[in-house]
């Protein structure tokens, strides 16, 4: 395997647009070299943003790093590009299992089985979900997947999601910069000012209420939205995630955050 990694690395260096990054990323992932695998997958994804296998590889690496929210987004994207992508269907089924949503897990596995009827892993997982073969079926989810994902993010996300009240106090989530430093409090303080200025701007210009602020940066993208009149939700992603997708992620996160706020009011 080390020889294969070396060979593939060399091929990729000679031709950065080559698809060998898929195999290389997978080998690195198997070896547990997740940081390197992450870099290879992300670079490959930037060059091939419409390749479902690239999203699938990235999602698997994210899942290995326990970044389930992003893994979900990547598998979701793979399915949008290729609705029959077996890897993405299995990946999403795995995530639904993790939050206890057996119905959704089974639905995705059944779809995978239709595409790949000879895949033993799919059959085994499906049996588990249905409680066949003596295995106990997994209890249904206490809450929908959307909410579970955002809720999990708010209850200790490592990065990428921040929920604030109108004064800039953190209600949930956390944020780290690319160097790994916790920037939650600093960003929260600045965001309160951004939100106030956004509200004032649209009011004085007669544009109604503001519904979102999307910004594209050199190193990453952000989307700020008010899930309620006295809360703010910030979603941050690196540049590999296009702005349009970030908007969809932010919309879903805002909906889930709204339900979370109502439940905690």
């Amino acid at each position, binding site marked *: 395997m080390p020889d294969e990694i070396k060979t593939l690395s060399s091929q990729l260096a000679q031709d950065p647009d080559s698809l060998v990054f898929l195999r290389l990323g997978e080998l690195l992932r198997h070896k547990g070299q997740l940081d390197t695998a992450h870099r290879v997958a992300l670079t490959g994804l930037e060059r091939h943003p419409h390749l479902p296998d690239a999203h699938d590889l990235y999602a698997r690496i994210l899942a290995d790093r326990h970044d389930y929210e992003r893994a979900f987004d990547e598998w979701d994207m793979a399915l949008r590009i290729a609705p029959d992508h077996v890897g993405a269907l299995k990946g999403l089924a795995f995530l639904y299992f993790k939050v206890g949503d057996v119905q959704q897990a089974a639905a995705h596995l059944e779809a995978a089985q239709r595409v790949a009827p000879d895949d033993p892993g799919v059959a085994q997982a499906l049996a588990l979900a249905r409680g066949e073969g003596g295995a106990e079926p997994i209890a249904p989810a206490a809450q929908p997947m959307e909410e579970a994902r955002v809720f999990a993010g708010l209850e200790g996300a490592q990065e990428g999601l921040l929920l604030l009240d109108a004064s800039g106090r953190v209600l949930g989530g956390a944020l780290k910069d690319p160097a790994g430093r916790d920037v939650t409090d600093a960003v929260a303080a600045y965001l309160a000012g951004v939100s106030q200025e956004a509200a004032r701007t649209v009011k004085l210009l007669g544009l109604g209420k503001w519904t979102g602020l999307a910004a594209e940066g050199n*190193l990453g993208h952000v989307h700020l939205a008010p899930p309620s009149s006295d809360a703010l939700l910030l979603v941050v992603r690196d540049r590999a995630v296009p702005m349009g997708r970030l908007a969809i992620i932010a919309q879903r996160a805002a909906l889930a955050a709204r339900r979370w706020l109502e439940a905690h009011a």
Partner: protein
Amino acid sequence: MTAPAAAYGKALDLITRVRGVRGAMLVSAEDGIVVAEQLMEGIKGPALSALAASLATRLRRAMEAAGVGASVFWHLQAEQGALLVVPTPGGTLVVAVAEPDVNVGLVRLELLRAAEVVG
């Protein structure tokens, strides 16, 4: 080297031609003063420039703190309209005010082109 003022008008023209754009302007980011404008009736130029510049400053600080780098483009969405902005390296903001359902991708392209002209 910055373009002569006549080129500003042309750059703004290309932005305002996009369907749904109600006006475009160049704003000095530092002091929020209008540099050049092409606005439809009813849009308050000085208010737009001052507020866009103030919001741009606050957003820049938040983005720097979050580690996502300098802003390349931002889009404020509201119920009855939108503000789309591209900052230039020379300290100018290229601003468009538009209908809420404007083609954001197209406006963004024209703003980026205008930013290259303005410098």
